């Protein structure tokens, strides 16, 4: 399977997919943890999550996320692509409100606007540093 993210359009697709997978992973994690007793300690929580059937799905999501992310990094600056995935703060917040009935106050709305503005600014910068093969050898 040959996947190439060298075109701008594919790069945007890759970063969007990274954000979506990040969102799905976080929500699944939340859902797994929400099913545990609230007084469970850290080790009990980890153990409980491992025994959820959804954990398999979560593991698959993490693997897909890693594979997709490596493809993105082949063609974009880390300091370009990674900040853009902060959009998952927005998607997780909005979906949490729908799925878990969490309240969104004025502070969070302000935060969402800041994140969106920041992502827009980063996306206006060059996605790949010039004269830069990516790393020192």
């Amino acid at each position: 399977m040959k996947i190439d993210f060298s075109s701008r359009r594919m790069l945007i697709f890759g970063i969007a997919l990274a954000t979506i997978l990040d969102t799905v992973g976080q929500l699944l994690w939340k859902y797994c943890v929400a099913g545990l007793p609230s007084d469970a300690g850290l080790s009990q929580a980890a153990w409980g999550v491992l025994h959820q059937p959804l954990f398999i799905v979560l593991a698959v999501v993490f693997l897909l996320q890693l594979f997709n992310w490596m493809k993105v990094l082949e063609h974009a600056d880390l300091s370009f692509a990674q900040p853009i995935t902060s959009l998952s703060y927005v998607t997780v917040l909005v979906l949490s409100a729908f799925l878990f009935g969490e309240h969104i106050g004025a502070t969070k709305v302000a935060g969402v606007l800041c994140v969106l503005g920041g992502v827009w600014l980063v996306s206006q910068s060059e996605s790949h540093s010039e004269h830069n093969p990516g790393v020192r050898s």
Partner: protein
Amino acid sequence: MNTPLAGIILVVLSSAIEGFAQVCLKKSAVLSVRKREWLALGIVLFVFEALLYSGALQSLDISTAYPLGALSFVAVTLFSRWLLRETIDLKRWLGLGLIVCGAALVAGQP
């Protein structure tokens, strides 16, 4: 170790580790040698970071720990500049600042 200060140090440390782990993944993605080694190191660091962060949550309130986690964006950008020689132009710096503020606001309690 169970003071908030220790928790804050752990969160800052885990943000720094996240930055370095991302650099490892980037190196694995673009280098032609030692791809697997960089990938493995990156994954190990991510797992280590998750453990550290969980440890921090035991001594730190979530409303403090979550917003502080936005520091990982700073760490990634600084390490990209220092270790990967990426050019961070003004737009990217400003965007980073807004994202860090926004993420901290979103992650904090209402």
